């Protein structure tokens, strides 16, 4: 079995590999049903002991299931497309076709992202070239080996080039960008800006995911409910811990609706216990000294900044809760640092969002209030509104973009007989 990740050393090598990929993609057509069938088997193959400790693999197995992806495909492109058929649109008919070869630039902070991004491009029938970040090569190799094992005929693997090259090789990045018909770009501000600046063909579809930050809100009824508070706090801790609070869907602030009846400090104490438990279950293995400095800095500046400010943190940099008031999103510190801010009106918080907030995690008991908050969030640039504890559940649309549809062309056929 050949190595699932190809190390690319030069521009001619990249150009040559991409030409082969284009030929292989054009040679056959693959319909979503066939892709979903292979994904189902891939999901089963990923249930392997050696992968159990890889962050996100449990989710990846669920993601690849037909039961998860089929509804997404149907919603984005209609049920008729599952078998590659046309669907009626008045007197005309429509059918999706791949854009061609899609380039993927995943973020380096999420272990399964190269595969998640790839899975979307393949569902559209595209050939896919994925630039695998150096730190994710071993994990991605393991995941792709499982696909190689079950895709005996190479229906999908022939359409994939998992490429590794140093991130500083601008020439190879340029060669990759210049040969794709679409791109799915994920990551932080610097990474996204650099990739977007590459010389893509003028026809290339560009879908950018990130950089974004996320927030959570809870109404007084919900956070004040002592009997359910422990569970809510666990959910918040889970959302903060996953991806070490570096993902675009990681909450950086939790806004609590003020209540005369309930004590926010009591809530923060419960949240502290939840953070302690989550930390015991998922301790940090390493940290950059600069992040430790930033965490210590934000703790101090918060407490020195105002006498009403409170904070909860251990002697280590493991986690931090900053408790106070305020309606504006703080700039992220990351490192499991959550600002918990009391506000009079949750709508006021949302009205200040400027489009940088991707996901709004909700803990709201009143359905009408939730409806109103979701509407306001949509108006102010939020792309996902979900229950707390589910902020990272990857689904389509993401960042307001349909994951499969964004990389297909929808062809309109008006029959001659009409």
């Amino acid at each position, binding site marked *: 079995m050949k190595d699932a990740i190809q190390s690319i050393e030069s521009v001619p090598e990249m150009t040559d590999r991409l030409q082969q990929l284009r030929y292989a993609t054009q040679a056959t057509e693959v319909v979503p049903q066939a892709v979903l069938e292979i994904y189902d088997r891939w999901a089963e193959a990923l249930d392997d002991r050696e992968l159990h400790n890889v962050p996100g693999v449990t989710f990846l197995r669920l993601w690849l299931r037909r039961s998860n992806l089929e509804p997404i495909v149907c919603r984005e492109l209609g049920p008729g497309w599952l078998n590659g058929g046309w669907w009626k649109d008045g007197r005309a008919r429509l059918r999706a076709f791949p854009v061609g070869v899609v380039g993927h630039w995943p*973020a380096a902070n999420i272990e399964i992202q190269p595969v998640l991004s790839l899975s979307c491009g393949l569902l559209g029938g595209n050939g896919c070239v994925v630039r695998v970040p150096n730190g994710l090569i071993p994990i991605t190799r393991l995941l792709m080996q499982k696909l190689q094992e079950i895709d005996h005929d190479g229906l999908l693997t022939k359409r994939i080039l998992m490429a590794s090259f140093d991130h500083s090789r601008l020439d190879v990045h340029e060669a990759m960008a210049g040969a794709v018909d679409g791109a799915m770009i994920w990551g*932080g501000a610097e990474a996204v800006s650099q990739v977007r600046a590459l010389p893509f063909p003028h026809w290339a579809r560009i879908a950018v995911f*990130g950089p974004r930050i996320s927030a959570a809100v809870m109404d007084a009824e919900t956070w004040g409910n002592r009997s359910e508070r422990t569970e809510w706090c666990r959910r918040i801790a889970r959302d903060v811990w996953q991806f070490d609070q570096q993902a675009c869907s990681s909450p950086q602030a939790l806004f609590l609706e003020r209540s005369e009846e309930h004590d926010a400090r009591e809530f923060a104490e419960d949240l502290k216990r939840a953070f302690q438990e989550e930390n015991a279950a998922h301790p940090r293995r390493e940290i950059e*000294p*600069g992040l430790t400095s930033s965490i210590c800095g934000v703790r101090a500046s918060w*407490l020195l900044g105002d006498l009403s400010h409170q904070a909860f*943190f251990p002697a280590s*940099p493991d986690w931090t809760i900053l408790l106070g008031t305020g309606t504006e999103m703080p700039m992220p510190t990351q490192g499991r640092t959550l600002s918990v801010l009391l506000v009079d009106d949750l709508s006021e918080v949302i009205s200040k969002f400027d489009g940088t907030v991707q996901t709004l995690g909700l803990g709201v008991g009143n359905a009408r209030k939730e409806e109103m908050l979701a509407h306001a969030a949509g108006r102010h640039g939020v792309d996902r509104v979900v229950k707390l504890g589910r902020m990272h559940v990857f689904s389509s649309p993401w960042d307001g973009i349909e994951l499969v549809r964004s990389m297909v062309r929808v062809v309109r056929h008006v029959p001659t007989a009409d």
Partner: protein
Amino acid sequence: MSSLAEIQRQIESLLGLAPYGTSPQQHESVLLALLKQELAYACGKNLQFCNYVEHWPVRFSEATRIADLPYLPVSMFKANPPLALVGTDEIRRTLTSSATTGQVPSRIVLDAATAKVMSKGVVTIIRDFIGPARRPYLIIDTEENLGTHAQLGARGAAIQGLSSFATEQVCCLHPGQEQDERLDLEKLLTFVDRWKNSSVLVYGFTYVIWTQFVQALRREGIRLDMPNVHVLHSGGWKRLQQQAVTQEVFNREVASVFGCPATRVMDFYGMVENVGVVYPDCDYGNKHVPAFAEVIIRDPLTLAPVEAGQKGLIEVCSALPTSFPGFSLLTEDLAEVVNYDGCPCGRRGISFRFAGRVPKAEVRGCGNLENLRYPRSVVGVA
């Protein structure tokens, strides 16, 4: 709460001890007790600082080791107005750090008492390395950096800290832009002619000595014949590292220019926020901590003190300041603990080596947001 007078009495008592002669256990016990009193005093003087201390995971009054006491990140002294434990009418001088372009400098307020013990602290330390005698003092800097005003920069503070050892002082650089040729050769050679066989103290910022002094003299082909100098320098290695100048190369070249042994070239680590304490290299290349101070090297992962041989973030503690809460400061520097006692130079307590600045933390991943999309004023319409 101890009175300020009682705290100052204990500070004077510590300053009277041999700076590096106390056993680690004795050092810890005496300093811990004093630092607790100082924290209690500071909490009564500055409510913001008190708010910080009260949220610390360990109550300082119950701490059993210095490492458990609350520490402030050194960047907190960039606040405006500066963190202080005295009223503005008591401030005699404000020290500013040497921030590079675009950075906000730290500002440290000194009252008369802190300024006095600060000078004593530096003298006590330096005396242990170069002896107590006064001698001619050659300053590789300009007179404008001597700092006779209420505002004093890091360079001025270092220059002035050593002036107690001076019988006379001479600055050998012309004022002007740093990139210009500024060495006042005539003034320098007059000084050298007069004192070349004497014991002489020389001080300059590390990169100033290299760029304005060593390079200039090498270009002129001049070698000074001053075998009895002590060349002290500080200010960090960042700019010289960019020019691939190592400490070994620096020491060799400086010694060559002065015509002295390389062991007479001495780097010391220090910062304006850690008033009265400097950390010169001993003959074994290690840095030591005097009786009135402590250094804790903390593991970035746990913030617990590291084992000998390990690297971590430098926390500097000092009993000297009473005009600002600079008792325990987490710096943005890294160091390696060589040992917790037993340096062959004979100085007791921790020995450590500077290991560079902490690289700036970058917000990572797809949550790395460099800026908001629009200014706050543009959004907010419901």
